[in-house]
């Protein structure tokens, strides 16, 4: 198994470190030719969604990645990654890959002074630490999207078939369980 980590901008190295702690190989995707290598799954890291969304298009990654996700490639988006996958963003006219049936709210907790940590229940895992940095949350899920975690009544993690998103950053805590959860999704998804 080898997982691609979108490395256009943001905290991609932290994801690579988590994967390496789990003994999983990963490689960085910075431009079109990096997609020539077969990948078992893709992680879209935290960072700025506006920057990553723009670079996806300008570096000709947008269409091929979108196509792979639609075909069933497992994908895990954290924070900005969640926004890149959302079909709707309530307070932004820009949407990006638009593959997941969720409606997100950008910067939903305000500016940096609104950033926080907490410990909450994640469905199928239990209580885990969650770090929110100028984070979004999910206002609504549609169709077969499953809610995996809530903080103060707001949805902060969800899954729809091959797509997993968290508004928080599992790559910034010691906890490996959400990454393991994603690896399990890949293991179950032999078809892609």
């Amino acid at each position, binding site marked *: 198994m080898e997982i691609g980590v979108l490395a256009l*901008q943001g905290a991609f190295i932290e994801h690579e470190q988590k994967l390496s702690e789990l003994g999983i190989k990963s490689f960085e995707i910075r431009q079109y030719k990096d997609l020539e290598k077969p990948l078992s799954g893709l992680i879209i890291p935290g960072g700025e969604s506006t920057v990553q969304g*723009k*670079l996806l298009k300008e570096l000709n990654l947008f269409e091929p990645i979108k196509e792979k996700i639609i075909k069933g490639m497992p994908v895990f988006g954290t924070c900005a990654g969640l926004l890149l996958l959302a079909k709707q963003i309530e307070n932004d006219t820009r949407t990006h890959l638009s593959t997941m049936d969720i409606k997100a709210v950008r910067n939903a907790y305000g500016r940096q002074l609104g950033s926080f940590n907490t410990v909450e229940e994640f469905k199928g895992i239990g209580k885990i630490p969650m770090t929110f940095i100028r984070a979004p949350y999910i206002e609504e899920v549609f169709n077969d999207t499953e809610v995996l975690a809530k903080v103060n009544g707001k949805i902060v993690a969800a899954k729809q078939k091959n797509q997993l998103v968290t508004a928080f950053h599992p790559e910034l805590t010691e906890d490996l369980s959400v990454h393991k959860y994603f690896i399990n999704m890949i293991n179950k998804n032999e078809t892609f």
Partner: protein
Amino acid sequence: MDNKRFELNKNLAQMLKGGVIMDVTTPEQAKIAEAAGACAVMALERIPADIRAAGGVSRMSDPKMIKGIQNAVSIPVMAKCRIGHFAEAQILQAIEIDYIDESEVLSPADDKYHIDKTAFDVPFVCGAKDLGEALRRINEGAAMIRTKGEPGTGDVVQAVRHMRLMQQEIRRLGSASEDELYDEAKLLQVPYDLVLYVHKNKKLPVVNFAAGGVATPADAALMMQLGAEGVFVGSGIFKSGNPEKRAAAIVKAVTNYKDAKLLAELSEDLGEAMVGINEQEIELLMAERGK
């Protein structure tokens, strides 16, 4: 600021990595920067090149102007306060700035003490010329470090010097034996714990960006290859012939800083770069402010 808040503040800098933070003076420029792919903007009344040209005392920007920029964009907004001017920093915190740059670009308000940044909830970024300076700022509570470079010159030589020196010193600490670290702490004038961290991890405990004199995609790529985790571009963008195009090219250069072929394409046809001044022609060395 408790430990948790410091972690969150370091974490925000981690999200900025691999990105370009651009100086802007108006909401219009902020929008251009955001559209070009800036991961954050630095709101200030005058960009360093103009501060240098105008002379006189340079202070924190008008909060109204900063708020105008906060309302114009969705990305993080930073602003500068003078070295040691904790009241300016309190004001910036009150308007919920995302990051405060305690900056040598402005006239220092205190020639001895930096701000006790641990007393604040918002994060600070500080400039450093070498490892000792970086660790002293981190000890005071800085959650992010940048090279000082020489702002407003369009000359990258000082940023290169600072980044090289920092990396050399990190390598030296990394290969020192543990019993030598006590003396290193003394020489660097920093707490032992921070020296031990650098020794073990072979990096600073916070994110380290390049700043000062970056004017072209090649400059940005150079700084990234020298170990910067992202780049501040001040005067280089809005003092150039075609800010939109240059800004977008620098953003892409930071993402693909090792791909010379792509860098060649990005460097084409950018119009006039900022004129700049060489370091020998400068009368005021801003990097010498605050140590």
